[in-house]
């Protein structure tokens, strides 16, 4: 482990990069030293390449092939069809295109609503837990529990609550409160979207809470004291101190949550099984179904690539807008 013990200490204390070599003798040290960070990164880069970048390239290639069950064993034999898969799946006049568009709107509504509610619950909890009081640590741990639970355990529990005949929701609504006469279905039909949304908010809001709590720790207490001296009430302090100070956290948090929710596969898959009801047919389930039920991997890949492009455009746009606003404020 003790590398190059003979080198003089003065050499080590030099700035790490960019400083021009002072003599011909030291010149070889520069490149060797600057190689180290790359060696340290190499394992991470190789793994990311192998499991993320290469498959992504393969995915793009697959989307240009007619890749059905006949070619899965050896996909080099699959015929090249160019943009045919894109044309077939994205053509909004075809049945497949209409289904995809429907899925897209469902997913967009699901993501925006889920992120909105998760943020709202997260900020409420973070703000009211800012001040120390008895039981605060306990509540904080409790609020984080849904995030710590494995997704399948959490969603299976929800699917039990939402069962028509044996679930808690109908028991409370119909048997105990008498609000409804019929026992509604929650996991099929029109209610399935609302069910999916509630489960997703339950799972997501603790992450928002965690990030916002972390963000609030960076808000200096003097700001609140100054605001209080100026006579600012609760809402005024929230609007003028808390929210502006949380801005950097919110920017990252909202984008990350949106992307996670938009790509969410686990929640609908565990809640509904492989084929979600039409009202809650999220895009990732849609792609999964059209790929593995019909073994049409070419179309599945085309939809995945289109989804990725959409998300990249949204992220880039979001980052551009928020960065420009940040510059305006500075």
């Amino acid at each position, binding site marked *: 482990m003790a590398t190059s013990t003979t080198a003089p200490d003065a050499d080590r204390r030099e700035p790490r990069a960019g400083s021009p070599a002072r003599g011909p003798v030291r010149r070889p040290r520069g490149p060797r030293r600057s190689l180290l960070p*790359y060696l340290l990164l190499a394992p*991470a880069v190789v793994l990311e390449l192998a499991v993320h970048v290469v498959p992504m390239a393969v995915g793009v290639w697959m989307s240009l092939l007619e890749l059905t069950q006949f070619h899965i064993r050896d996909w080099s034999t699959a015929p090249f069809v160019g943009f045919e898969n894109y044309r077939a799946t994205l053509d909004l006049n075809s049945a497949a295109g209409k289904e995809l568009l429907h899925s897209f709107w469902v997913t967009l509504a699901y993501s925006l609503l889920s992120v909105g509610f998760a943020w709202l619950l997260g900020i409420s909890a973070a703000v009211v837990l800012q001040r120390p009081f008895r039981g605060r640590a306990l509540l904080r741990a409790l609020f984080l529990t*849904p995030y710590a639970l494995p997704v399948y355990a959490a969603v299976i529990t929800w699917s039990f609550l939402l069962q028509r005949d044996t679930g808690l929701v109908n028991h409370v609504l119909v048997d105990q409160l008498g609000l409804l006469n019929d026992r509604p279905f929650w996991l099929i039909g029109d209610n399935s979207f609302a069910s999916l949304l509630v489960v997703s908010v339950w799972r997501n809001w603790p992450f928002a809470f965690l990030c916002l709590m972390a963000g609030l720790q960076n808000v200096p207490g003097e700001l609140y004291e100054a605001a209080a001296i100026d006579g600012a009430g609760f809402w005024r302090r929230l609007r003028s101190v808390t929210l502006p100070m949380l801005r950097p956290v919110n920017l990252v948090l909202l984008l990350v949550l949106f992307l996670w929710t938009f790509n969410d596969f686990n929640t609908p898959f565990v809640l509904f099984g492989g084929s979600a009801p039409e009202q809650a047919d999220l895009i990732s389930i849609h792609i999964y179904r059209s790929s593995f039920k019909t073994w049409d991997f070419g179309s599945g890949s085309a939809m995945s690539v289109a989804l990725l492009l959409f998300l990249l455009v949204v992220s880039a746009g979001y980052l551009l807008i928020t960065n420009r606003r940040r510059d305006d404020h500075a």
Partner: protein
Amino acid sequence: MRETAGERWGRRIVLTLLALFVVIPLYVMVTSAAKPLQDVQNGFTWWPSRPTLQPFVDMWSTVPLARYLVNSLVVSSIAAVCSVAVAIFAAFAVSRYRFRGRGVFSVTVLSTQMFPGILFLLPLFLIYVNLGNATGIELYASRTGLVITYLTFSLPFSIWMLVGYFDSIPRGLDEAAQVDGAGPLRTLFQVILPAAVPGVVAVTVYAFMTAWGEVLFASVMTDEGSRTLAVGLQGYSTQFNVYWNQIMAASLVVSIPVVVGFLALQRYFVAGLTAGAVK
């Protein structure tokens, strides 16, 4: 700064509503795990008619839960340890060196987190299947394939959080070690890592949780022998019966280790998120 009466009541109401929202499903999970089968078949009850621990006994024989548990444990532990080992070196490089491509690396690594899992699923499925056919290396339907996949899933976030922890360790410590003649790796292992132990443990738990909870790849890339809990729990719904009490018992058992680990380390997650997200 005094709290007004209105604020106090507002706080109580908000906290009560949030606590109820969180607790009710957890309560149902726990109490239903102690119900006899007829309780979960004939309409909902708030309390077991006759509390029993039988579901915790029966759940092992209804599905091969022990095998799924071992598979999940092996896959998640190996993936977590490998992921953190790789992340430590990468985070050390990003935190302590200025080099060409540093920004690109950080952005690329983070953005892979944002890509839809379904995007990798189809190509990885085909690559694993074809690699198996061509070379005999069985990655499809094997625990090795899952380990490799999962360790890269947690890698980006692990690197991100570790960079945060490492950045918070004063550079003066590095420099002191270097004056004493320590090379970069010795500085990492003898100075930075010991100071970052809580962070490293928190990141390991995070990586473990990621693998423990993954559903999509587990349901496509496993067979009966390599199946993990994520898929295995679906086995309690048979054609004739849904053993809700056993499902709840099994869910409880698979949740406890990760929930305990997470809650014990939540302080360090908050610290890591602050360091990573805010800067």
